[in-house]
Structures are given as structure tokens and as C-alpha cells.
């Protein structure tokens, strides 16, 4: 009887989605019970091979979490070619910079095979921050740590050029 009720009432996708999202580093600070709120904020979409998820220069407001397939990230070079920056695997996320500052995308993302993604849109993230602050804070903290780590890595690899950029900016 209890098993029958469980089969009728419980969502079989719930645990599958939760297990997948628990593996995504962005959501590591979120407890098991809170994942239901996160599902409400995510939207699922499929892309065909070769389809562009977003173009470099487009204004974006969403973060993408790769569920299945592979996504190629490319950027236009000064010569007019495109350079491949990375190929992303399931569980990776991308597009976080535009989610935060709503400025143009710095690279192009294209599906190399049939791809399934979850989209976390800015409005939904803001709603999470207001309605379930613990989840919002966990995501925001992780994003801030990621950006800080990137900056630190950049200053360590090219300290002089960055220092001169800061000096030049101060002069302006």
C-alpha cells in the first residue's frame, strides 16, 4: 500500500535530477531538502548538433548547466578567425559572467552533438536569493569564489601586464 502510494505521489525524476545537480560544483552548498526549490528555477532545453547556444557579443542573462552532450566554446581572434577555448562536458556550467553583469557574451557556445542543458535565468536567481536566501547565497558565493580564483590565476600568470593596465586606468 505504502509502495503503491509512493509510486503514485512521488516524482521519479526528482531523485535523478537531484543526484545530477549534487555533482555540479555550483550547487555544492545546497542541502538535499532544498533542491526542490532549485528545480523550480531551472528550465530545460535541448539543442541540435551545430546549434549555437549563444553568440559572442550577444547580451545574455542566463547561466547554462550542461546535462548531456558536449559544448564547444570559441572566441573570435584579432585576425578574424575563431579560436577554440574549451570543450565542456556534462556537469560543467558556463555563461556565468553575463548572468551577473548582463553584459555581452565574451565567447560563442555551440553544441557539437545533441545537447541537453538547464538554464538558470537571472530573474529566477534573484527570486531564489529573495525567497530561499540560503540557496541564493550558496550560488552567489560559489560564483564570487570562481571569479576571484580566475582573477588570481590571471595575476599570477601575467602580473606585470595587469599591473600596467591598472596603472593606465588610474591615469585615466
Amino acid at each position: 500500500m505504502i509502495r503503491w502510494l509512493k509510486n503514485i505521489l512521488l516524482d521519479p525524476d526528482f531523485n535523478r535530477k537531484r543526484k545530477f545537480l549534487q555533482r555540479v560544483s555550483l550547487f555544492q552548498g545546497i542541502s538535499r531538502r532544498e533542491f526542490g526549490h532549485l528545480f523550480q528555477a531551472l528550465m530545460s532545453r535541448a539543442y541540435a548538433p551545430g546549434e549555437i547556444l549563444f553568440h559572442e557579443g550577444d547580451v545574455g542573462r542566463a547561466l547554462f548547466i550542461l546535462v548531456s552532450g558536449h559544448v564547444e566554446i570559441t572566441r573570435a581572434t584579432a585576425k578574424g578567425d575563431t579560436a577554440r577555448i574549451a570543450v565542456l562536458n556534462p556537469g560543467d556550467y558556463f555563461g556565468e559572467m553575463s548572468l551577473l553583469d548582463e553584459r555581452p557574451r565574451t565567447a560563442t557556445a555551440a553544441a557539437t552533438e545533441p545537447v541537453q542543458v538547464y538554464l538558470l535565468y537571472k530573474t529566477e536567481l534573484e527570486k531564489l536569493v529573495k525567497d530561499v536566501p540560503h540557496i541564493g547565497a550558496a550560488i552567489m558565493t560559489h560564483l564570487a569564489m570562481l571569479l576571484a580564483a580566475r582573477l588570481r590565476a590571471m595575476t599570477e600568470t601575467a602580473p606585470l601586464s595587469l599591473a600596467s593596465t591598472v596603472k593606465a586606468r588610474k591615469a585615466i
Partner: protein
Amino acid sequence: MNLSGRTLFPLVVLVAVSYFLFRIHEILLPFILAGALAYFVSPLVRFFEVRGLRREPVVILLYILFVGTFAYLFYKLAWVAAFEAQDAARNMPVYIQEGGKALARLRGHVNSACFNYVAEHGKAWPQAILSRMPSFALGMFPVLEVVFLVPFIGFFFVREGPHWRDAIVSWVPSRYVEMLLNLLFELDNSLGRYVRGILLEAFCVGCIALFGFWAIGLGYSLQIAVVVGIANVIPYVGPFVGFLLGGGVALFQWGSIFGLAKVLAVCVAVRFIEDWFIQPTVMQKAVHLHPVLIVLALMSGTELFGFWGLLFAVPVACMIKVLLEVFWPWYRSQYGFISPAPLPEINRIPLV
């Protein structure tokens, strides 16, 4: 700006859909009300969904609960209405006598031509009302149709809502996905808040009006308060309708201007409480519309679609405002009119 075929196609589809909806607007009412019902129910469904329950059984159980509660309330209200109708029939001679006395007292204060017109034609009004009862009863059939259709359509709206949203997002070209998501989330947030807010506000106003009318001892307080609550769905109208109905009852019940003044005081108090306490609390997160825009929307709605235009003028105005708020920044940023500025501290604070 270069209008290519890819840009024109969605525009043509949008115009065609708008024209089609305009042509069939007379049959859209049950669908719009079902949408409002779906907005009202969806937070409850979400409450269970975030806890890992499947949407379909939750919606079915909630519907059984709602229909049961509604049927019980309807039965109780019908019982009270029948009881009070019996009471009204018993007290009618007294009311007519009191009303006659009040009119006689008013004779000296009111313009005699106007008074004579009312006295002359007033005798014929009951007959006229009775003669129109059959057509009124027939006119109730569409209302009953709506009463049964709305929960039926609403059930599918609530059950399938997220699937339809996902289908729309899958259908649009990937380049417009983020813009469409922005539009959908903003519309969903603002309309959802508006619909839930307006229903909660109507309930609160009805309760306060009931308390006020009951406190001054007005007859048929419950019925008048229910009408006040329903009428309050149209901004500013609830307390006004309450004064018209309550004033009429007060005139017959007490036969004095003092009774009318008591009803007026209650209605003014309801209006102030609504403005100062209920609206700021209930509607704080909904789309804010300037009062002048609300009046303009109400007048335009009435002019274009009559009563139903009046009823849906404000939510439609909210939708238009959200559409403009979403489309205009997107249009400006898409075509390079503006570039979002980086944080100003970037030039001042060194990288440490």
C-alpha cells in the same frame, strides 16, 4: 535596422495571432478566468512539488478539495440567501412603509421635478423588474457555463503549465531563448502576483465590509459584502457598489439620512483601509501602475470591450507595461544603442 525574413516571420505570426485573438475575444473569457485560477492555485502546487511530489496527483487532490469547499460554501450561502429572502418577504411591508416615510421627508429637500419623476415611474419599476426576470434567468446560463468551464480548463492549465512553457522555449530559435525567458519570467511574476494580490485584496475588502455593515446593524450584510468583494476586482469600484447597495437597504431599513451616513462612513473606512493597509501589503510586489494609467486603462477597456474590458483592463495594462519593460532594454541593447556600463569601482580599486 535591417528587417530580414527571419525577423519578419515572428512579427507576422505575432500580428496574425493578435488578430485571431481579437476576432474570438468574446469566447476567451473562460480561458482568461481559467488562467487566473491557475495563477491562484500554482503556489500551492509548487509547495508540494518542491518536496518531491508529482504534479498531477497534487493538482487532482487540490481540485477535489477546492470543489468540495466551494460546493459546501455555495450550499451554505444559498441556505442563508433563502432564509434572508424569506425574512425580506416578511418585512417588506415595514420596509415599504419606512421607505415611504424617508421619501416623504426627502420631498422638501430634493428638486420637485426629479422627485415627481421618481414617484411617478417608481411604481412601475417592480413590474418592469419582474417582467425581465425570465430573460435575466436565461442570461444566467452563460454564467453557469463559465462556472463549470473555468475549473475544467483551469485544471489543464495548472497540470500542464510548465510543459507548455518548456514547449514554447524549445520552439523559439536559440538566439531568442534568453529574451523569451526574460519575458516569460517577468510576465509570470508580475501577473501571478497581480492575480493573487487582487483576489486576496477582494477577500479582505469583503471581510472588512461585512464587519462594518454588521457593526452598524445593516440588513443583508453578508450578501452586500460578497458583492463588494467581487466588485473590488475592478479598482475603486467595490466600496462604491457597497454604498449604492448598502445605502438603498439603509434607506428602507431605517428610513433616515442618518442610516445612509452610517453606510457612507463604513464604505469610506473600507476604502481608506484598502488604500493604506491592504494594498501596500498585498500588492507591494505586483506591477505598479499610476492611478491615472489605471483610470485610462479602465476607460479604454470599457470603450473597446464593455463590461469584460472593464474587468480585465488593469491586468492587460500590467502585461503591456511588462512587455515594454522587457522589450525596450532588449531592443536597445540588441541594436547597440546602449552598452551596459561596468562597475565604476573597477578604475579605483586595485586588484588585490
